[in-house]
């Protein structure tokens, strides 16, 4: 195989890494190609909030130096990556899509960034997101929305829409997202890319600016299942700085992606996620995918998860409660925005003015919801009940996984909607995550991968696979098998059908 003369930005991460290892392409060339692509398309896509050109080129050159001095390079060494702007990176702006942190440069690297650096992955910059990861469209970013490369009038999903858009626009072959209720999977679904929310505790959260600590999970995003697996294996694993991180061996996701075999597997359709409310083309591509899996040798079984009905309600109590506390520290006292410090305002007034000016409407809405849900006299009815629902959802999953190996559903109810279409209807926006939220509440692992375009609008449809905690490898077995069958059917990856920008 040769990639010389081809467009380096159209390659998979695995191919690029191999080319860099063999010397067919230098890391600097690969990085430069992506920086050029960003220069030419990102004005329209707006995937990035910050591009770190010099640092990216410098780290690429150091990979080339290592190679020329004979060092053995890692499986993704020299491959460029887009980092969601919610993970700290020393000295590089980390805004979380908020005015509150507009000029904040963290003095430390997150665990994920440390691991990316150690793997010689080249971090191109930070990607756009809904403010503090609250949203499903990036329309809640204080810095303006990102645009879906399939149709620039449409949303790229959220909160990690910037990372997904960067992949779909061929600005980077790898990206990091974070998923609290679907923020990796729903953007993957609407951009025709792959995203995995690992088991809660599978990837350390140290340095991930918390939205809802008990739900947040960073994970890998790419254009193929194998690239996703390679990135997954680099960022996953125990870190003592995160007490909730799991001290156990990481499932062998790369081997699973290579095996790509569903023969004899029992695949469950969740009754509660298989009913009404899905766009016709979404439901159609989902059914077709089930047929493919059955044809590949899997057994399809329907299982009931009755408590999923209450997942959205529980989620919108737990998330705002934790967020109201996690976001309290943004008070203008120590870092970030400070408003009203003119000698005429008290400390309390400066805190209030800063929070009034620094947070957007959606953030304020959720802080108020959470503050209310935790307040004395309401705690048991709201936060307490939500935790009970959470336990019931875990039990539903546990009993389902007694009879099936993985569960599947469409990732999102619709394809990408138009920018501005749902911005004034928070409930409609929240419903985007109806199928992704149960996994976050239970702490399971899940993947979204592209399974075709909806006939009615020609936009990508995502297929969700859910596995038990610490069985992330099953996602890759099923995902890679399905991806491979679809590739054979189409003769290319779905993303190749995206319009040129």
């Amino acid at each position, binding site marked *: 195989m040769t990639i010389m003369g081809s467009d380096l930005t159209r390659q998979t991460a695995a191919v690029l890494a191999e080319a860099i290892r063999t010397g067919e392409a230098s890391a600097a060339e690969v990085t430069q190609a992506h920086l050029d692509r960003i220069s030419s398309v990102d004005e329209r896509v707006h995937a990035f909030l910050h591009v770190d050109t010099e640092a990216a080129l410098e780290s690429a050159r150091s990979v080339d130096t290592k190679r020329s001095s004979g060092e053995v390079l890692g499986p993704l060494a020299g491959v460029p990556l887009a980092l969601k702007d919610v993970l700290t990176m020393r000295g590089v702006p980390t805004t979380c899509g908020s005015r509150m942190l507009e000029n904040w440069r*963290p003095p*430390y690297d997150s665990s994920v960034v440390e691991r990316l650096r150690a793997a010689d992955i080249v971090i191109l910059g930070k990607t756009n997101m809904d403010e503090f990861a609250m949203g499903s469209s990036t329309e809640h970013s204080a810095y303006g929305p990102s645009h879906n490369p399939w149709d620039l009038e449409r949303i790229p999903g959220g909160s990690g829409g910037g990372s997904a858009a960067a992949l779909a626009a061929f600005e980077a072959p790898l990206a990091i997202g974070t998923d609290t209720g679907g923020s990796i999977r729903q953007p993957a679904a609407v951009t025709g890319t792959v995203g995995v929310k690992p088991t809660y505790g599978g990837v350390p959260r140290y340095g991930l600016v918390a939205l*809802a600590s008990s739900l947040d999970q960073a994970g890998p995003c790419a254009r193929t299942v194998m690239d996703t697996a390679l990135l997954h294996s680099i960022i996953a694993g125990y870190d003592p700085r995160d*007490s909730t991180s799991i001290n156990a061996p990481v499932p062998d996701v790369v081997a699973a992606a290579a095996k790509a075999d569903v023969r004899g597997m029992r695949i469950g359709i969740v009754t509660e996620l298989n009913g009404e409310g899905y766009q016709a083309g979404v439901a159609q591509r989902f059914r077709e995918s089930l047929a493919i899996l059955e044809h590949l040798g899997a057994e399809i079984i329907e299982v009931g998860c009755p408590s999923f009905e209450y997942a959205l309600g529980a989620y919108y109590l737990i998330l705002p409660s*934790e967020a109201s506390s996690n976001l309290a520290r*943004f008070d203008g006292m120590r870092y970030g925005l400070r408003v009203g410090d003119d000698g005429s305002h008290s400390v309390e007034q400066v805190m209030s003015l800063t929070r009034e000016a620094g947070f957007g409407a959606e953030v304020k809405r959720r802080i108020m919801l959470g503050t209310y849900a935790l307040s*004395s006299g309401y705690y048991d009815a709201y936060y307490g009940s939500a935790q009970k629902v959470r336990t019931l959802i875990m039990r539903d999953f546990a009993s389902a996984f007694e009879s099936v190996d993985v569960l599947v559903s469409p990732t999102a109810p619709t394809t990408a909607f138009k920018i501005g279409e749902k911005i004034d209807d928070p409930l409609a926006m929240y419903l985007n995550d109806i199928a992704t939220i149960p996994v976050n509440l239970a702490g399971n692992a899940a993947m979204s991968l592209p399974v075709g375009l909806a006939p009615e609008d020609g936009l990508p449809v995502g297929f969700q696979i859910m596995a038990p905690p610490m069985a992330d490898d099953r996602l890759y077995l099923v995902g890679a098998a399905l991806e491979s069958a679809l590739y054979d059917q189409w003769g290319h990856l779905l993303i190749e059908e995206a319009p040129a920008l």
Partner: protein
Amino acid sequence: MSTAMPETIPYDEALNLFEPVFGLEVHVEMGTNSKMFCSCPTAFGGEPNTQVCPVCLGLPGSMPVVNRTAVESTIRIGLALNCTIAEWCRFARKNYFYPDMPKDYQISQYDEPLCSNGYLDVTVATVEGPKVVRVEIERVHMEEDTGKLTHAGGATGRIHGADYSLVDYNRAGIPLIEIVTKPVAGAGHLVADVAKAYVAELRDLMRALGVSDVRMEEGSLRCDVNLSLNKPGSPMGTRSETKNVNSLRSVERAVRSEVERQSALLTAGGRVVQETRHFHEDIGRSTSGRSKEQAEDYRYFPEPDLVPIAPSPAWIDELRSTLPELPSAKRSRLEAEWGITPFELATVVNAGALDLVEETIEAGVESAAARKWWTGELLRTANDQGIELADLPVTPAHIARVEALVADGSLNDKLARQVFEGVIAGEGDVDEVITSRGLAVVSDDAALLAAIDEALVAQPDVAEKIRSGKVQAAGAIVGAVMKSTRGQADAAKVRALLLDRLGVTEA
């Protein structure tokens, strides 16, 4: 209410009218080397904001990790206080905005404390002798300290009215133990003494366990005093909470002043407001703070960044086996071993000399002599220098050496004091000081006889009196000899030599 109503009623008079109920919340800084949730050092006195990291500054993305030693210390305290240790418990977030709080929430424990339902017996002195009072413990839990604010400008030193405020986060995240009593009723006139004795006993316990050195002057023990009064036979009254009570003396004064204030209010037909009051060490009184009737809602919920603590029975047993002899048991034992009264032992304890005296006795010194040195001369010196006895350069071994030299006649009491003076001044150990200062007792008979003769010649009339049998006049000659030998003689020996010289015997 009448404006002529007295502001206070004297303590004893007040307690003839009302029954007091008190409760104490004591916060103690643990003596761990690192902070509660990060590895920053806890040493006192560093330059502001030098002992900080992303975690204790609450930077976005940072996460806490529990200090295992702090958990062990808390369990050991719980065991020493006869508490039940939780099989499973969690940390909780206490949410409120304040600039000394890096995260605008404090990681604490709420409805699932690590230790609960214990007790501590304390002894108070009464006219009828020592009385033991059981103080029941509601809970013992851990939490993190806040930073320290300094308010510049303005008259009060408080945040309101200050020109600007500075904050030092070195203290933020230092592990704190909070020990909360159940309401203590029935102490009557002893209420202030019981409260003080309880805090003193806790302090001794912390020190014995080695979990904190409890340096009150550095603010490492802080109390909140809850107090209410009720008429005999009536239900418990409305309580006030007095904060900022940071010394043993203040505990006593805070209780007394609150008894006096509330009793005056109630007697005049007023009512006690449920409020937070601030105690002022300088004036020995409290002033009204925030009213609890508009109480803050802390919106507690389980800390999602930490996993539950589930101490295994084996670990608890292991920690139980590390418990030292507890202060009350140790006191009973020492009273018996040393043959002294509780009052005499209290003198030693109050001087902070218990361990020093014990070690001195172990080094071979008689109990009386050991106590005499530590609670007498050495305590005075330490007090003059404003330091703890244990911080003097004098050691139990020094005392043992001096006592041995006194016993064999090489030193007398006066010389011994000079030896310690030299040791404290840094002149070396006991023998070095004796050599350099030339402090040996003059035991050379010829030299002493020469001095005696000289004194007899100088005072012929006294010499005559002694010869004529008035032996009590010998003191003047002995005194003159001691003076001429600059105290370096054994007075008894001088007297014996003198009488022998003059051929008289003791009457």
